């Protein structure tokens, strides 16, 4: 049987002066009817370019220089724009990462689905209305007969993505291209969307080209997997085979870099003194009353939180977006003021000290930020970035410089990095610089606010390992903020789960993962993509380890 989509030796050139000549080079890919193929790769691997090439949406700066794309017996590469328009929609649908920016905020979602329907085919008004209802029902949206009158901002993130899928499927395409459709969503929402896609492809015999960086997601939905690196397809084959016994070394490295949902073997639980103690902490964001319309309700971002961190302990605060975990981090670091409650550092109440005193205490609590691209001042060189704070706190310039050189080595950077500017470094390297900047002040507590969520898996693994090393070496206490239970499981001794400003559960990592007490933690754990794969993997790992023990 001929495949539905057949990409042969596709090459897409990059503009002159890029770090490599081709965005995609000699890529080969086929998708059969009703099949789900996942294209996996890190940022810059060319996976999105592949999707755009198939949709005929490549910008002029990225021309196709070789190979063919054939869809359902029709050659797509080199097709005129007007002919392509008959392919997009009725033949191939596409959904994107961020549904909020892909939908028009001033039109109701019903009108937008209607637009997708009118663009192709000449249905009557009544037919379109019926089809719209049918689609909304198919997407399992609540109140399908009324939700069409709503605007984008009235829907949740998951509902928006469902509307996007409804629009993509409006004209019964045979292929759906999904470019990281769940990356911007919370895990529990991601799970629902993945489940929806799975049912839809069965009901509609839909082929799906799914672009992702997350092997957990791959394990959930893929029939076949295509692994890309630097524009090349390095390996492709059945999902089971690639996920369990990858042949290519790059694939193996990628898969090994996925953090496991199992606690590290030796959890260091010290009974030493408490570094940080949070008591009854509360922060409310006042709802602003606008000139028109009703006053918006207050939001309790942090609600009566109790948490403590012992010396040398890593405590992870896990929660979905809007859970208040970042607000908590900002209050502890002194960036925000709490409304009520107290933060004690070594038995000193930080809320009671003056502004000036708080500034003097600043070195004791340091922070690593999420976005490596905005966390370093682009106009300062690395030496200034790292040594500015210690010099301001009275350390001599010479001492600060020698400290900096020691720390640059510790975080795995060359000492000649000092004279360069942030733009010369990659995301992972910048996170290392940010870490050096925090550590030079010899903090008692390090707050890490999603320090790896903007990084690729392999870089993420390196940074997490570095954090573990440093923590062992310096006996650092870390408050680790993350949305990713896998990451939390690999770094933390204890985990606190937050939801709507409250800590719903906290306990040792092993205990919490093995026997979660609250329903919410159970749901969170259940939503982690690729759980089944994970279990098989660890069984395999233990099976491999046992014979070696006998030997």
């Amino acid at each position, binding site marked *: 049987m001929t495949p539905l989509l057949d990409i042969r030796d596709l090459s897409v050139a990059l503009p002159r002066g*890029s*770090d490599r000549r081709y965005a995609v080079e000699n890529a080969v890919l086929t998708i059969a009817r009703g099949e789900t193929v996942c294209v996996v790769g890190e940022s*810059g691997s060319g996976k999105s370019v592949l999707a755009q090439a198939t949709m005929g949406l490549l910008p002029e700066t990225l021309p196709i220089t070789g190979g063919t794309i054939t869809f359902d017996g029709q050659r797509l590469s080199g097709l005129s724009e007007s002919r392509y328009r008959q392919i997009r929609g009725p033949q191939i649908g596409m959904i994107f990462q961020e549904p909020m920016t892909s939908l028009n905020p001033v039109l109701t979602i019903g009108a937008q689905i209607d637009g997708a329907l009118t663009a192709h085919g000449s249905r009557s008004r009544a037919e379109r209305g019926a089809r719209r209802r049918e689609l909304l029902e198919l997407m399992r949206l609540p109140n399908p007969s009324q939700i069409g009158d709503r605007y984008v901002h009235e829907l949740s993130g998951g509902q928006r993505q469902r509307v996007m899928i409804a629009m993509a499927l409006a004209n019964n395409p045979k292929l759906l291209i999904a470019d990281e459709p769940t990356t911007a969503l919370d895990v529990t929402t991601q799970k629902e969307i993945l489940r929806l896609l799975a049912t839809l492809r069965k009901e509609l015999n839909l082929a799906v080209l799914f672009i992702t960086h997350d092997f957990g997601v791959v394990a959930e939905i893929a029939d076949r997997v295509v692994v890309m690196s630097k524009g090349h397809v390095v390996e492709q084959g059945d999902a089971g085979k690639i996920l369990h016994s990858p042949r290519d070394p790059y694939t193996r490295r990628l898969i090994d870099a996925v953090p496991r949902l199992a606690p590290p073997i030796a959890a260091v639980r010290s009974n030493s003194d408490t570094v940080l103690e949070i008591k009854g902490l509360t922060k409310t964001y006042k709802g602003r009353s606008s000139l028109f319309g009703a006053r918006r309700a207050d939001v309790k971002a942090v609600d009566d939180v109790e948490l403590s961190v012992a010396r040398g302990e890593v405590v992870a605060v896990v929660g979905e977006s809007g859970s208040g975990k970042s607000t908590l981090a900002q209050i502890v*670091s*002194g*960036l925000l003021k709490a409304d009520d409650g107290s933060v004690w550092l070594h038995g000193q109440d930080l809320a009671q000290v003056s502004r000036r005193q708080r*500034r*003097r*205490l*600043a*070195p004791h*609590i*340091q*922070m690593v*930020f*999420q*976005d490596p*691209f*905005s*966390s*370093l*001042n*682009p*106009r*300062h060189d690395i030496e200034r*970035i790292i040594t*500015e*704070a210690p010099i*301001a*706190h009275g350390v001599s310039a010479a001492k600060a410089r020698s400290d900096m050189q020691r720390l640059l080595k510790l975080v795995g950077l060359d000492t000649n990095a000092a004279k360069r500017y942030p*733009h010369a470094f990659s995301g992972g390297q910048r996170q290392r610089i*940010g870490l050096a*900047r925090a550590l030079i*002040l010899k903090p008692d507590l390090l707050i890490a606010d999603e320090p790896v969520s903007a990084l690729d898996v392999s870089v993420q693994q390196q940074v997490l390992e570095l954090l573990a090393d440093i923590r062992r070496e310096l006996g650092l206490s870390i408050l680790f903020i993350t949305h990713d239970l896998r990451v939390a499981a690999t770094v933390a001794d204890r985990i606190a789960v937050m939801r709507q400003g409250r800590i719903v559960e906290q306990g040792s990592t092993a205990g919490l993962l093995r026997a979660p007490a609250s329903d919410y933690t159970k749901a969170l754990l259940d939503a982690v993509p690729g759980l089944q794969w994970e279990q098989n993997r660890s069984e395999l790992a233990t099976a491999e380890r046992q014979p070696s023990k006998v030997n």
Partner: protein
Amino acid sequence: MIGFLRSFASRPSTLIGLLVFLSVVVIALIADWLYPGSPFRMVARPNLPPLSTGYLMGTDMLGRDLTAALVHGSRVTLSIAILATLLTVAIGTIIGAISGYYGAIVDDTAMRVTEFFQAIPSFLFAIVLVAVVSPSRLSIVLAIAIVSWPSVARLVRAEVLTLRTRDFVRAARVGGLSDMRILFSHILPNAMSPLLVSASVVMATAILIESGISFLGLGDRNAVSWGYLIGTGRTAVRINWWLSALPGFAIFLTVWSLNLVGDGLSTWLDPRKTETGRHP
């Protein structure tokens, strides 16, 4: 700097603007060498038309050389415009920075004051200020600065508001640096680009306001400026039109060149252009 020049060279309009403005500056600097002595001296027959021998732009009704007056006038006009721009940017930056950085009541107060100044038509306000105080170059500079700072303050405030939430500024706060240090070494240097662009516009406006004030005869009577020349030539515009037209053309040329430079600066400093290199 090389990138700046290359980008300027690649846009002819910006290059022309820069050349015109620089030549005005050079003429102002060497005015005494070009036309030594006071431009108020009567040197030739009155009402000589332009292109007369020795008097490129002719003479006025008292036989004063218009070319000399224009050259010396550029000095007065430019010095007032530059001083007024510096003062405007200084006031606007300080108020905008403090307002954006501290927020809350400070911000509210500063913005209400800013709006108060913005609500008054700026040119009329400047005239009133100069008329109330004695007309001198200093009072004109002050008047221009007082009416122009609000736009700069609003711009700086907006920049500071976005920059203060950036992680590197947060990192500086977590590092325990003082507010002044965070403002001056982390926030404001990153707000330079839009500030430069707006400074070029402020300068163009300053030239116009100064000319307007001098035209109305409210300026410094002892100094020749372009606006003053238009004002004195106005009475005889039907006999010798060039007395008003040529200084007017000089003002037009300078303001136009400044706008071109501002345009060039904003394209060169466009964040989208510089960001692309960082987010491949």
